């Protein structure tokens, strides 16, 4: 680990002021950032601990929820309103990491956690464009079983590993951001960038910008929603494929649907195409399957991850069938 200094502001203004310094980084639970610092992949000179900033979960006037960025993952997953109105979010969170990590991890940190690409982590011995721009990517022709097939670029094929973000993507969540110049909001689906030529730039956040919270809009159909994660062991493993879905069926026809995928894409993947293909169509297994397949029409499989499209289609179909039935 490279030596650094540490600050713990108690309000957003102080955090933003400190955050303007070169080499400054915000620190949530540290479950990702500190690991990366130990590996010297991240080398901030100043850590600004933002766990003392608001982390409450509050009702909003439009009938949704506003979750403070410092809220712990566990607190969100256990929250009554979250469980009742957005069950897929609670399930996505508890499907991730371990109890101990979720107790530490914050919502802000979870959004901005970095990829688990093996070569990204191998600072000493592997090439990675995300770590060192222009260095090359050892994953494209290496071990890429866990990598993405959607949204990839010739520069980077790493997945965004978060479970929580997949649910947030499906739920039309909006990220609240502050900078010294004021505040702005960004839909979660626009927060993360596709890697393109610059995989090192992962979000639309400007340097020093602080995530202050996430707004969930009122979304009645989310009360009937699910998150399913497929992984190599029963717990404590990142997703091979995950599916967040909410479905409203009326008289055998899909009235509305929210669908997002994890494990298959370079960012939390809202399945717009599949949703489009489903709305106002009969809620049948064939249609579910066809819609999921449409989402993967442009998938780019690599050496080891060719199974992901089929797995995602099967899992999506099963989740939608379950939501449509009983």
């Amino acid at each position, binding site marked *: 680990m490279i*030596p650094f200094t540490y600050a713990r502001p108690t309000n957003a203004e102080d955090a933003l002021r400190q955050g303007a310094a070169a080499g400054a980084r915000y620190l949530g639970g540290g479950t990702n950032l500190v690991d990366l610092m130990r590996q010297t992949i991240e080398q901030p000179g100043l850590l600004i601990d933002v766990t003392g900033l608001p982390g409450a979960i509050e009702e909003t006037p439009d009938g949704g929820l506003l979750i403070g960025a410092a809220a712990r993952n566990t607190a969100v997953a256990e929250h009554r309103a979250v469980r009742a109105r957005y069950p897929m979010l609670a399930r996505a969170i508890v499907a991730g990491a371990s109890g101990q990590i979720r107790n530490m991890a914050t919502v802000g940190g979870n959004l901005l956690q970095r990829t688990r690409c093996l070569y990204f*982590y191998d600072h000493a*011995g*592997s090439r990675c464009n995300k770590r060192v721009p222009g260095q090359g990517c050892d994953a494209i022709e290496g071990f890429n079983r866990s990598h993405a097939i959607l949204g990839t670029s010739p520069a980077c094929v790493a997945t965004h590993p978060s479970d929580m973000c997949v649910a947030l993507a499906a739920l039309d969540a909006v990220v609240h951001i502050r900078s010294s110049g004021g505040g702005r909001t960004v839909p979660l689906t626009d927060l993360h960038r596709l890697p393109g030529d610059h995989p090192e730039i992962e979000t639309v956040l400007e340097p020093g910008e602080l995530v202050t919270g996430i707004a969930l809009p009122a979304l009645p159909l989310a009360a009937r929603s699910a998150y399913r994660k497929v*992984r190599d*062991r029963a717990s*404590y493993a990142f997703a091979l494929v995950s599916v967040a879905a909410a479905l409203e069926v009326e008289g055998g026809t899909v009235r509305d649907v929210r669908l997002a995928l994890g494990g298959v894409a370079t960012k939390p993947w809202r399945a717009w195409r599949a949703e489009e293909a489903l709305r106002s169509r009969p809620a049948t297994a064939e249609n579910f399957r066809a819609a999921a397949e449409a989402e993967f029409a442009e998938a780019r499989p690599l050496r080891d991850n060719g199974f992901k499209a089929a797995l995602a289609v099967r*899992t999506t179909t099963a989740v939608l069938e379950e939501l449509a039935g009983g």
Partner: protein
Amino acid sequence: MTADAGAARPARVAIAPGPDGWAGGEPDPLIRRRGGPLGAPVSRVDGGLKVRGAARFAAEVPLASMVYAALAFSTVARGRIVRLDTAAAEGAPGVVLVMTYRNAPRMTAVPALLSPAPNGAMGDELPIMQDDRIHWNGQPIAVVLGETQEQAGHAASLIEASYEAEPAVTSFEEAKRRGGEQAAYAGQPLSLQAGDAEAALSAAAVKVDAVYRTPFQNHNAIEPEAVTLAWDGDDLTVHDSTRMVSRVAWSLAQAFGLKEEQVHVSSPYVGGAFGSKTLWQHTVLAAAAARLAGRPVRMALSREGVYRVVGGRARTEQRVAIGAQADGRFDALIHTGAMAKIRRNYVPEPFISPAMCLYAAGSLKLDVRAVYLDMLANTFMRAPGESVGSFALESAIDELAERIGMDPVELRLRNEPAADPGSGKPFSSRHLAEAYRAGAERFGWASRDPRPGGRRDGEWLTGIGCATATYPHLRFPGGAARLTLSKDGQARVEVAAHEMGMGTATAQAQVTAERLGLPLEQVSVAYGESSFPGVFVAGASQQTAQIGAAVVAAHRALVAELLRLCGGDSPLAGLGVDQVGARGGGLCSLADPRRWLSYASILDGGDRDEISAEASAPPPAEAEHWSMHSFGADFCEVRVSAVTGETRVSRFLGSFDCGRVINAKTAASQLRGGIIMGLGLALMEETLIDERSGRIVNPSLAEYHVPAHADVPEIDVMWTDIPDPHAPMGAHGIGEIGITGVAAAVANAIYNATGTRVRDLPITPDKLL
């Protein structure tokens, strides 16, 4: 039974000393004892210490003015270091020393494990930071000592190296293409031919012939390797995490040109080894750096460090072919293939071991080839050979059973051999059929539906499978023990043996209490010091027998000493060692138990406060007469998602024939632990070595999967408890038998559930789509 019911009850009937040899003749009299400490489910003696955090492990020993070590590793598989820039590291805060091949002390090479030289403990016989040559990707290239662990780690990250890379073999296919060599175990070629198996196979009525693959695996003991050590002049004191205290002491003495007595290795607690925790470069480097810096050093490997420095299980590719008659009898059994290793170590992955002892077959062809890679040396990992070999063999048997249309248990029992098929020796103790019958009944095997893919519970396909477990019973030479008895009735055993979580001290206290006719509370076992008697290895599941035989020898010597103290008026006067027995805290005549004297009176009479005897165990001649093995029958039930291919093991039963069980509680833990590790082997463990670079790219518990709690179902274990008449205490070691057979039982259950046969471990969801 409660944990120590019966434990405190001393023997009421006199018990004779054990025999002075194990080759035949007299079995251990302890075999006949029931209801005493032996076999009782006694809680481990160090359980409280460990739960409270009071047991001090190697990385926790504080030494005055100690510094902390961190390693830098090579990033190429083979070549030379052409630039090694340590200036930034040397100038970093808190740095005490940067050691590289340029300033490391000259050290003599030390023999590797299984090398022709005795006492080998090193993972390989490569030079340790003596020159600019690189032999594997991950080889330590520098040691940094810092005032804190963080400072050492920071400085290590500042070291910059460039290499002149040389062509390296880093692909298994390439290694196979180059051909390799006949593999050998301790000089013995791993090859056996009886009859013309290929011809018998072609002529057979029914046959299976397939290739099975198992991956590289790494060690992930809960305690990563660690050592804390200090020099005092030419004396070196080493607090190590090792299962070979005496060999480590001897090896370090070799490396630094010392007398063996000048090196003191202490290893009272080891947080799991499973085949690791022998001697790897970090220990030698820590001693070298401490000598150079003149400061005590702690080297605690990071998890990544373990992956880079400590070897794991070799990758294998195995062909199993069986030719059988319509009634199931085997005409031919072929088990051949390749395992990956380096040229400069001696550890094979002898995957043909199960085929050497399990089945009668008209002809046999068994062979292991070593193919060579430029990588970290492979090493032992729980049941080396048997764990992966039984996956291939026992999967093939299942495939054959289906082809013949016979129940797989029945097929196995039909081919039970009368004597060892490899050596022709009689089995010392083989009750596999009993284990199968008892296990099958408890598991409900009879209800099995042999049709694959037929049963569904929602999206979950269910199936059951079984497989045979087997592991040899061994006893290494070199065992010795000191036994001390004091007037207050306390007995103490001293052995240079090891406790890695399996309950050594507890089990051996039970054995010794029973031998001496003392309550369990009055017996203690001291271990984990190289200064204690014997050269023990906690490995190959043999330490229990090795200590057991040493304690018998020491006990005989102690009884002889006690009898010498008895005067002419003593009730024991004139009796020899084999004429007396232990009973109720003293000795009595076996012929006339009323002639009894307490230990206290004997010591009193001889005017002694305590008496001590040390003796060496007789050489393991029993192995020349008998084929000695443990056996087991594994039964597994799985659920496989028809949607995602995810496998959940829902039930597991292991029914073992592993001799007399010494401690029902710690034995059950060992067997269950082995089975859990077997579930990892079956479903998830795999080291990813990038074939372009020879580099391990998942050196972390986040990316290298071992079973999590949610992967482990209720595991039932049972045993025949039939003693082996040719083993000390009638007992077999049980550290490894648990993992054997498990991967095949899982694969066979998955086949029964889905109709998909996976011959390539680990069985991940993508292989079942």
